[in-house]
């Protein structure tokens, strides 16, 4: 799992490249656990190169969602591949998290 960061004044974009499983999801958890991340208004997750997600990867997002909401940070996913979106749908997580098709829509949320 490779994570690339891009930051503007109020928005942090994390681009995920690879597979999020029980082996690799710890890298993402470390990134989302950094206290300074809560200083953003938005954290955008670019999923274009995210080829796979298991419950371990989902668990990382589930575990941080409330902290983000409490701090007023919007967590938005975009560019999600169909097979990855399907995994969110199977659990109904697509209704608990904000997932939009494009970066332009993610910025506009």
């Amino acid at each position, binding site marked *: 799992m490779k994570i690339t960061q891009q930051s503007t004044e109020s928005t942090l974009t994390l681009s995920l490249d690879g597979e999020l*499983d029980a*082996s690799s999801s710890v890298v993402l958890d470390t990134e989302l656990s950094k206290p300074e991340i809560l200083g953003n208004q938005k954290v955008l997750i670019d999923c274009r190169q995210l080829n796979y997600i*298991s*419950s371990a990867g989902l668990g990382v997002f*589930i*575990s941080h969602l409330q902290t983000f909401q409490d701090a007023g940070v919007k967590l938005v996913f975009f560019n999600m591949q169909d097979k990855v979106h*399907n995994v969110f749908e199977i659990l*109904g997580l697509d209704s608990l998290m904000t997932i939009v098709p494009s970066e332009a829509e993610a910025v506009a949320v």
Partner: protein
Amino acid sequence: MKHAIRISCTRRNLKVVRDFVSEFLLSYHLSELVINQIVLAVDEVVANLIIHGNGEDESQFLDVRVNLQNQEFSIEIEDTNLTSYSPTSYVEPDLQEYVRIGKKGGVGMMLVNRIMDRVEFTTDGTRNLCRLYKKLS
């Protein structure tokens, strides 16, 4: 085609099992979505057995066997651990509650149960067998 694989109990081998199952399914002209779902269900069970069942002890092994017969995919995952998984202890999680308390794990078996048609766990002495089935019509 190879229908069986033996792996040691390390998280690094999760990818090895995923590739093994994907490769097996590729020749059956299934959609990318269905292949990903089956690979995911297998990955979840294998991760549980590696991490919780065998404590990531690399001297322990899992035997994985796949089969497709009469339009039904099946997979057997076998280990010889003393702490077998007990499906009777499974309760479908409340995801809104998980979000509220910031819970990191616990949705793996929910995925497995929602994706596969049948999920069976049996124990015979120290031999534990998990069988997953899915119709591919």
